[in-house]
């Protein structure tokens, strides 16, 4: 295995205009926002997403006008509400949508990862997810077939999806790309396995010997990873289990701005496009804000603050 460390700029160059992406994380956790902040600042056109629950990635790409279509299962902001720019993009026809259940999206990624022409599964059948295509023909996406073993069982089969690039944020990796992450791992394994190119941004790069101490905790093996970027707070304003909570104030600030297209555009310019680099993006947030997010190592989260 070769040394896969690259700079953020080198990693960004792996995502061309027109690329099909998938990104790790879900709810307000583990989304590679540092990477996508920088991608938005650089600018890309005609991106597509093969997503499961990377709501913030979808929303910011939509808000930046860079998202053209999405295969996905659910994008919403837990505790806030709808992803407004993403949803309105579908409403006004600038973003094309192809709907799935979570398991349906995962099975398409698994089929893509494992070179299988389809995966069988027991959900989605009988619904508009199966019967009504978005931008795909429904019969290219899901069919309900009789078991080839003639046992009379009806089973849904779904076709593969292969993203060009997966972008994952994790706690740590070695230079070879062995990746470890605590907490619920969402769909990271399936997304990384399916994609042609896998970029991982991490809080910390550690020696391979450190990875070897807890091999059971390795979520992605080096042989599925193409580029490793050292990007502390690379999930901020979403959280990283064991490191820091999501920054609910910052997220809420965006959410409020997102309810108006003009205000949202200003917000994107000011917060996402203006910073010169990742450090400027973090510096704008400020040390006090970022350090306050740190989680308690025993609890795994940030307990309520003691009133002064």
């Amino acid at each position, binding site marked *: 295995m070769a040394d896969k460390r690259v700079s953020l700029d080198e990693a960004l160059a792996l995502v061309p205009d027109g690329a099909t992406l998938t990104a790790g994380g*879900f*709810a*307000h*956790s583990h989304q590679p926002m540092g990477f996508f902040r920088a991608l938005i600042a650089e600018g890309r056109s005609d991106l597509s997403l093969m997503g499961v*629950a990377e709501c913030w990635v979808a929303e910011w790409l939509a808000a930046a006008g860079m998202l053209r279509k999405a295969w*996905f*299962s*659910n*994008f*919403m902001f*837990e*505790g806030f509400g*709808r*992803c407004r720019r*993403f*949803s*309105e993009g*579908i*409403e006004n*026809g600038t973003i094309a*949508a192809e*709907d*799935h*259940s*979570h*398991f*349906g999206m*995962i099975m398409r990624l*698994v089929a893509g990862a494992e070179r299988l022409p389809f995966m069988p599964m*027991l*959900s*989605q*059948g*009988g*619904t*508009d*997810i*199966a*019967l*009504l295509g*978005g931008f795909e023909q429904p019969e290219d996406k899901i069919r*309900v077939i009789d078991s080839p073993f003639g046992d009379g*069982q*009806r*089973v*849904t089969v779904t076709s593969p999806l292969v993203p060009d690039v997966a972008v994952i944020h994790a706690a740590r990796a070695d230079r070879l790309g062995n990746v470890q992450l605590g*907490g*619920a*791992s*969402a*769909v*990271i*394994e*399936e997304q990384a396995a399916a994609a042609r190119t896998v970029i991982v941004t991490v809080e910390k790069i550690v020696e391979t010997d450190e990875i070897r101490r807890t091999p059971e905790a390795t979520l992605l093996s080096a042989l599925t990873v193409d580029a490793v970027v050292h990007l502390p707070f690379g999930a901020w304003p979403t959280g990283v*289990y064991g490191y820091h*909570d999501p920054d609910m104030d910052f997220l809420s600030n965006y959410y409020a701005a997102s309810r108006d297209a003009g205000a949202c555009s200003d917000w994107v310019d000011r917060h996402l496009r203006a910073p010169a680099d990742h450090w400027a993006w973090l510096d704008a947030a400020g040390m006090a804000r970022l350090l306050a997010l740190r*989680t308690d190592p025993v*609890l*795994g*989260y940030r307990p309520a603050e003691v009133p002064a």
Partner: protein
Amino acid sequence: MSRDALMAMAAAREIRDGDVAFIGTGLPMVAAYLAKATHAPEVTLVFESGIIDPAPLELATGVGEYRLAFGATSIRGTRAALTLLQQGKVDIGFLGTAEIDAYGNLNTTAIGEYHHPDVRLPGSGGANDIASMARRSVVIARTGRRRFVETLHYLTTPGHLTGPGARKDAGLPGDGPVRVITDMGVLGFSPETQRMRAERLFPGVTLEALQEGIGFALDPPEEVTTIAPPDAGTLALLRRIDPAGTYVALED
């Protein structure tokens, strides 16, 4: 009297002791912890984030929240959690919705024409998987003629589809929805038609008032009873589980 408390009680009652329950944020989470604190101490809670059987010290506001992960006996990924559904290991799941039809089919995808919707909603997420594969499911939905509709704008999540036999033809292993818990009472499904009918009413609610809040004709009920209001012990438990009343207000 609190409608929220009645809904939480009614939802909790659907959980049997020993069940494996697939739970989302909000009222179902409160109901699940109410059930666990009362008649179902051996319920096992599973969350789509991959968290199994957690022991949180305070109520979480999301299935992905780190305070929910505290004390879990198992943490994996989303595929592992959803695979439990496909393995038939989940007894009950709870669902919310923007629209619901007489068969308990749900729409959480789009209002208006799917390709050019008036309002784009978040999409299925795990809901379709839960409703397709859990042994039984329970829908929680406040009444209203724009929510309880004759025809969905989009069928995201299967109830009984078009009625008897339809789920089997579609390859769905679970039995589908058994109850719809509203702010006026609890609905079930006629075995013959698999269409919705009233089962239990909240105190002071009439069958006519319930039908008024539903945009399709309910099937004739077999027997309708009235639910007793929550006792002081239940209210105290609800207050302990959700101290801020985030999901279950104890005053209307």
